[in-house]
């Protein structure tokens, strides 16, 4: 259970790095494949992908038996709440009421899907 919590925590940081690395991707897909400064040199994007991989590794460790999806899915949805906080702290994105309502519904939904996956 702690492993999955760790996985979602790491995953939320992965999203933060992807977001910060996405800024120079201005010319669209051309940048990713043809540019001199290809994503291999974009350490933020590389970190983001690396953190996602790490997160999925911990997630798989966490859902091995006796891990139960019904307990683990809510932990994953906590990652969305972390991300909301990071977006506020690192990018100064406004926390609107719409976001809270949407997030609340989604977290509740993920919990229910988890409950149904026993």
């Amino acid at each position, binding site marked *: 259970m702690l492993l999955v919590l760790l996985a979602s925590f790491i995953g*939320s940081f992965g*999203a*933060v790095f*992807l*977001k910060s*690395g*996405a*800024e120079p*991707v*201005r010319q*669209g*897909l051309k940048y*990713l494949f043809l540019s001199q400064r290809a994503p291999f040199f974009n350490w933020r*994007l590389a970190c*983001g*992908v690396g953190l*996602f991989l790490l997160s999925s590794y911990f997630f798989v460790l966490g859902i091995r038996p006796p891990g139960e999806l019904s307990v683990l*899915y809510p932990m994953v*949805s906590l990652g*969305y709440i972390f*991300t*909301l906080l*990071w*977006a*506020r702290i690192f*990018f100064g*994105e406004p*926390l*609107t009421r*719409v*976001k809270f*309502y*949407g*997030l*609340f*519904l*989604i*977290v*509740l*939904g*993920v*919990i*229910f*899907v*988890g*409950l*149904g*996956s026993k």
Partner: protein
Amino acid sequence: MQPETKLSTAASNSAQVSEKPVRRQPVGLVFCCTILGAAAQVLMKTGANHITQPGVLGMATNLPLMAGYCLYGLSTLLLVLALRDGELSLLYPVIALTYVWVTVLSFAIFHDEMNPWKIVGIVLIVAGVTVLGKGGKR
């Protein structure tokens, strides 16, 4: 005085348009990203069901598994493109749509059981994403 200000706003508008010829829809991009992600998970499950030999070699020669990883890469690419133009706090929760597709697909393909809990969960997630999507357009 007035026409001039109007003209200047029009000019700045056209400048913005020429800067970004294609208006991207970040929420739509993440939507595609969740479909790809769900397809990736289904492929991985298919691959995991047919593992012939253990170890790294067995994984590398497992076609559905590798195809799943490729789709994951593609969906991450779309996510980066979406994040470039959109807000992280708005887009990241939309990824939860993946749960919806995976639940529906695993019911259709692997005949996993469908129950009221899952249905309520799916409805709630879709409602939440709708709220975020509407709030994002404005």
